[in-house]
Structure formats: structure tokens, C-alpha cells
């Protein structure tokens, strides 16, 4: 949806948008338990149910951020407790990879969080959600869609700039040309 990427409604104070991927057996159930126990928490976290944290495709996380989420929370069973034996380990590995990836993109590490929350830990669920909302409120909006637009614009300008300068220098590639030094940046 195109409008998902627009800035917040006029007059409304900004609130973090957090997408959560919870496994069916532990963390989703913990969220149910928090409900049954009426443990009040912030409403900014939107839960998507998956059968196991192992189903969390890194692409889901990136998609959520790209679609305007300010942060992503992944919830699974504690180590050794995964309903499917070791889906959570797989998830942990992907999470570590994702952490590096988003760091490379200049995104604060706090925007991605993985928590093991068992079906009995309604209290922990509440705590994690509240902590996360507070942290992200402090960090402010991520605005990846807007950033993407801006990056696209910059890349375009840069490409134009390089093209113009290459044209002025008589063209040619860095490896063969005479004017190597400034061109290195374009190849980096």
C-alpha cells in the first residue's frame, strides 16, 4: 500500500510502529497469557503469528522495516524448548546475521530484538514490549521508506555527477584511465 510509507497523520504525536513475529507455541501463547492476566502494555506492537521462530525469513524483517516499521521483535521458545526441536537456534543464527546487516545499513541495533519468551512468561512479554516501545520512542522514527527515496535520489545524483565528470575527463574506467584517484570512490 502506497500510503503506508507516508509520514504520520497531521496533529498526531509520533508513536513507534513495531512488528512482532511470534512462534505459535511459546511467545504467541505468552501474549495470550498476558491478555488473560490483563497485563496492560503499550499497543504499538503488532503481532504476526508463525508456527516457529525458525520460520522467520530475514526478508520478513527487512520487508517490515522497508514498509515503515521502526523496529522488529522476534519471539520464540527458550533454548531446548522449541516445539520443533531447534527452529529457535536457526532463528538465532539468522538474527545474528541480520544484526550485522542492519548495522551495515546504519540502523541502530536496538531496532531488532530477539527474545525467548515461554508460554508461562506473560510478565516477561509485557516487560519486553514496554521496554522496546520505550527504547524505540527514544530513538525516534526509522523512516526507512523515506530514506530509501532519499538514497535513490542521491545515487541518481551521484551517477549523474560521475557520468558528467567522466565525460569531461574523456571517459574510461579507473583501471585503464589516467585519472584514477577520484574514480576509486565510484568503484568502492
Amino acid at each position, binding site marked *: 500500500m502506497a500510503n503506508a510509507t507516508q509520514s504520520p497523520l497531521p496533529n498526531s504525536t509520533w508513536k513507534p510502529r513495531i512488528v512482532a513475529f511470534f512462534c505459535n507455541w511459546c511467545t504467541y*501463547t505468552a501474549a495470550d497469557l498476558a491478555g488473560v492476566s490483563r497485563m*496492560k502494555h503499550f499497543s*504499538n506492537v503488532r503481532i504476526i503469528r508463525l508456527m516457529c521462530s525458525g520460520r522467520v525469513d530475514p526478508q*520478513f524483517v527487512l520487508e*517490515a522495516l522497508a514498509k515503515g516499521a521502526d523496529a522488529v521483535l522476534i519471539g520464540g521458545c527458550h533454548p531446548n524448548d522449541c516445539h520443533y526441536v531447534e527452529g529457535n537456534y536457526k532463528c538465532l543464527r539468522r538474527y545474528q546475521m541480520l544484526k550485522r546487516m542492519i548495522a551495515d545499513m546504519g540502523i541502530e541495533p536496538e531496532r531488532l530484538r530477539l527474545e525467548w519468551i515461554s508460554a508461562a512468561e506473560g510478565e516477561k512479554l509485557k516487560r519486553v514490549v514496554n521496554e522496546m516501545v520505550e527504547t524505540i520512542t527514544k530513538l525516534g522514527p526509522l523512516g526507512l521508506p523515506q530514506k530509501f527515496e532519499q538514497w535513490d535520489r542521491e545515487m541518481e545524483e551521484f551517477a549523474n555527477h560521475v557520468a558528467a565528470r567522466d565525460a569531461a575527463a574523456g571517459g574510461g574506467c579507473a583501471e585503464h584511465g589516467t585519472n584514477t584517484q577520484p574514480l576509486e570512490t565510484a568503484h568502492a
Partner: protein
Amino acid sequence: MKPIVPKKNEPVRIGFYICHCGTNIASVVDVEAVAKYAATLPNVAVSRTYKYMCSDPGQELIQQDIQESRLNRIVVAACSPLLHEHTFRKATEAGGLNPFYFQMVNIREHDSWVHTDRTEATRKAMALARAAIQRVPHHKPLEVKKVGINPNVLIVGGGIGGIHAALTLANAGKMVYLVEKEATIGGHMAKFDKTFPTLDCAMCVLSPKMAAIGSHPNIHLWTYSEVAKVDGYVGNFKVTVRRKPRYILEDLCTGCQECVNACVYKDAKFADEFNLGLGKRKPIFLPFPQAIPPVTMIDPEVCLNFKRGKNPDGSHTVSDKCKKTCVEACGDRKAIDFKQTQEIKEITVGTIIVATGFQIFDARRIPYYGYGVYPNVYNALEVERLINASGPTEGEVILRNGQVPKKVAIVHCVGSRDENTNRWCSRVCCLYSLKLAHLIKEHTHAEVYNFYIDMRTPGKGMEEFYNRIAEEGMHLIRGRVADVYPDPNDGATGRLVVQAEDTLTNKILKIPVDMVVLATGLEPHPEAESLRRMFNLSCSSEGWFLERHPKLAPVNTFTDGIFLAGCCQGPKDIPDTVAQAGAAAAEAFALIDKGHVEQEPNTAYILDDCCGCKSCIPLCPYTAISFAEDTKKAIINETLCKGCGTCVASCPSGSIVQNLFEDVEIYSEIDGVLAEGLF
């Protein structure tokens, strides 16, 4: 009703329903506004609110709309899918659609119950609804898989809970494996003399049931055994049981105990576990007179025919240093086997009942009650044994120094209702304390002081029981004991002073007594944690096994085919344990009787696009993926796949699809929950 099969190009027509849940949802979420919002979204043909969607009229509403408005997708925003997804899938199916053309939105547990701001909660409901409405057009018709059920049942724990469940199922003709870690079944109940509220003899009701277990043709009783491993799933669990060596061949031993009499140890001199160390036994012994199986065992730690100490693997080595008068006495029966080693049994069962009970609180954790320091401080279980006619004192309530106590204090709530130890109320302690007060008085004519915080006697006949005991003239003092210490005026006799505030008279009491009985609470077994892992159960934060739903599925667990009975799920008395065991047996029976289980069709399959990179193959915990050499593509065995989706998330070419959780479905949910203006 004619099944409606949407044609390929037929436009998607969604029916959206939002439930008030009485006021549970509607008091926080503006359901009308959500319905109005949903009506504006693409593909939504019908959008309604209803007081109780899960009620019959609610479900009929869906069926009617499917027929009349030619709906081909259904979205219901109500409670958790873990509660009612099944209900609405059924309603969808009853309306003539494939049940998987349905999606549920959780706006109660995840919304109205946890938020207070009406605007925010309503926005969240809208966003979640939108996610489902965007997702559901991608749904495909799916078919529920049916898997056969092995009719055998495993029951873990042979207390009254396990015993009752085993007999119920065995009498119904099912084959039961009953695994008990101690050398005899019976659990805690076998230690009691009388039981509240009726004060009837515990063994009189329990021993016939125990004997029936021992002789039942449909029951394999494996005592002194433990479950070592569990694989598989409902209908088809593969279980490994380890039978520890008792050095007696069960089939050959007749329970005559001639070996015990003949043992070179003339006197029993080793602490006897069944009597909590209050009595003594020999190296060869019967756990207690009515033990089932009625088979002796040898304690290799003290028997002279074994070397002292265990081998690193936990086994023991024979020293052959003893005259073995026991073997002589056993004679032709040849039941003694010093070379016995542990035995591994592998069985397949369709359902499992966990009935592993509880342990009593270790009173040493409250140092100011002096348990383990002053010999005249006892825990309740020890006193149960003292009172028991077949106990170490043959039913005489006497102190360790042989004297009969003249004044006895019973301290309620030891290790219960206390932030420093266990927070919960153990439920049976008030009642068993009243029982012990009566029995101690009956046996000794002592003056008995019960110190309680609140007298908790719920349940049928319990208040009447309290009344009866109170009439007998107990001192019932409302105040938690704050200190127990040796009487400074009377050091030599071991007399103790019990200090507490009588909160009803506002006076501090310091009562000298000869015996202190600690009504220790019930707590989960420490091994419950490893059992929990093995059976893939959940525990409450206290460590009790978690039932699937506290009201509607009290004996079910989150793992299909595994049921709970008795105190492993939480403290309870014998009547409730037995009721629960019956319920667990009925649940197991219902599954077996049906003959098959229906499996959620959330399995994965591999598309032709598979590039043959094999990265998914090692990821599957069930080895459901293999590589077809002819086509050079991976394939998933649908019967083995459990639907975790791990392989799907890993496929570099995106060629694995998980039914019910397809990528496109999740992407549309992501887009939906991030809807603008709804935060």
C-alpha cells in the same frame, strides 16, 4: 449444503465479522468503527459486528452470509485463534467453503484485554483486521491430514493419579505402560494413615487398586524405572524407558521376604526411605509391606556383596565378599541376581499421561522453624508415618527420644504463601493439619495447637470436617509462627517454644511444646524441568506443568496427545487428583477411540524452481527433506513434515512453500499491520 468452490478468476468476496465478546472486546475497542473501516477495504463484501461470534447464532450468521452473499473468504476478529480458530473454521466449512478460507484476528487477548486507551486499541484492531483482510485472498483450499493412533498409553508416575488413570484405561481394554521411578507404586497416598475429610483408612482404599495394577493383564508395570527419551508426536510416540537394576528378578521373586530374614545383617540398620529415615531396613528389603510389585530389592550402596561407591556410569561392581545367606534362603526360586544391569525398553504409544505428582517443601529453607536442627521438629509427612499403623513406630506417636508428646504445635503454611519461598497456597495443608491434629490427639491425648494464617477448607465436606475437628477442642490460633527455639527454662528435655502473635486477641504467645509439626507445602519435583523438556510441555512460572486452558482444557497440554493428572499440574487433594486422572484417561480414550488425529495442513512443499542447492536438507529436525537424484531437486515427505517452516525461511531460491504460512500471506500481513494512521 453445496460446497462452494471459488473459481480461478472469481472475484474475492470477504465476509468480515467482529465480536463484542459481551463487553470484553466492545468496552475497549470501538467495534462498530472497526466494522465500518473494514467495509472500506478492498474485497470486503460483508462487514458485521455481533455480540458473541462463537455462539450458535454467530456461527450461523457466517454460514448464511456465505450462501446469501456468495462469500468466499471469512475473517473473524475476536479472541485468540488458539481458542476459537477451530470453531470458525468449522462454521466456514458448514457454510460450504473450504475451512482454510478463513483467518482469525486476535483482538481480545492481544488488544482489548491489554490496552486501556480506546482510540489506540481501536486502531490496533483496525490494523490487525486489515492484515487478515489482505492475507485471506491468498488462502488456498487445503485438506486435513488424518493420521492413525497407536492404542497403547504411557502413564508416567504411579501415585494415586497414575494408578487411577491406568486402571481406567486398562479396564477399557487399552494396553497401558505404567512407569514409576520408585520401587513401588502408591505415591504419597501410600504413606498416609487416614485421609481427610472422611478419615477413612488410606491403604484400605488404595491397596486394592495397587494390587489390581500389579495383576492386570493390560498393564505393564515398570517400577524403579524412568523415561529416558520421547520422540514422535500424537498417535505415535516412541518412548525409551530405563529400568534400573534392583538385583532381584521380578518374575521369580514371590515376595516371601525369606532373603530379608536371612541377610547376614541381623538387625535393620540403614535409614529406610519409605519411612523418611524414621525407621530402619536391611540391605535387602521390601519398600513397605503392601508394596506393588511385592518384590524385594537390594541397596548396592550398603549390601556387602557389592564394592562401595558407584562406577562412573552409575553402575555398581560385585565384590562377592558376602556369604550371601540371602541367596541361600531364596533357594530354588533363584530370584537374586547381583549381576543385573539396567535394562532399556523401547515402546510405541499413541498417548501419554503425566502424573508425576509433587514433593514436599524442604523446611530447612525456613531456618527459624528449626527443622533439621531440633530433633522434635517434624515435617507433616514424617508425622503421617508415625501415625501409620504400619509405620516405623507401629502407629505410636512418639518422639525420637521415645517419649509421648503432651503438647504439640502444628504450624500451617510452611513454605506456602510466602514471597521468600513459595508463593502459592498448597491447598491441602490446612485440611491435613486438621486431620493430623485429630489423629495426634486420638493417639496421644496431647494438647494440640494449630497456628494458621487463614483456615482454607473449600470443597465438598471440608468445612463440615473443620467443624468436627474444632469441636474436638483443638487450640486454633490465628497467627503465623514467627519463631521456634529451645525452651530457655527447660533445655534438657528438648522442649521447644513456639512464638506467634494471636492476631485475634492481639497477644504474643510463647507456647512450650514437646513436638512441632510443620505443615510443609507442595512444590514441583526438581526433575519436573527435565520431564518438561522431554515431553515438550510448558510450566507455569512456579514449575507446575501448564494445562492448555485453565478452564476449558484442564488436563490437556500444549502438546497434542499428552495429558496431565494430579499434583504435577498444581496442588490438589486426592478426590481432585482422581477426578483429573479420570478426565485424562477419558481424553486419551477419546483420541484412541476416534482412531486418528487430524493434522493441521501446514506442511511445506518444494516447487519446481528448486535449484538443488541442498541447503534445506540438514535444517529439517524431522529429516523430512531428501534429495531426488533423478530430478536433482529436494523433496519433502509430507507425512514427516511437522510444519515448522524452518526450511522455507532458508531456501535461497524461495522455492519452498509452507501451507497456511506462505510468504505472500505473511508479506500481506506485514503490510496490513503497518497501515498508516493506525498507530
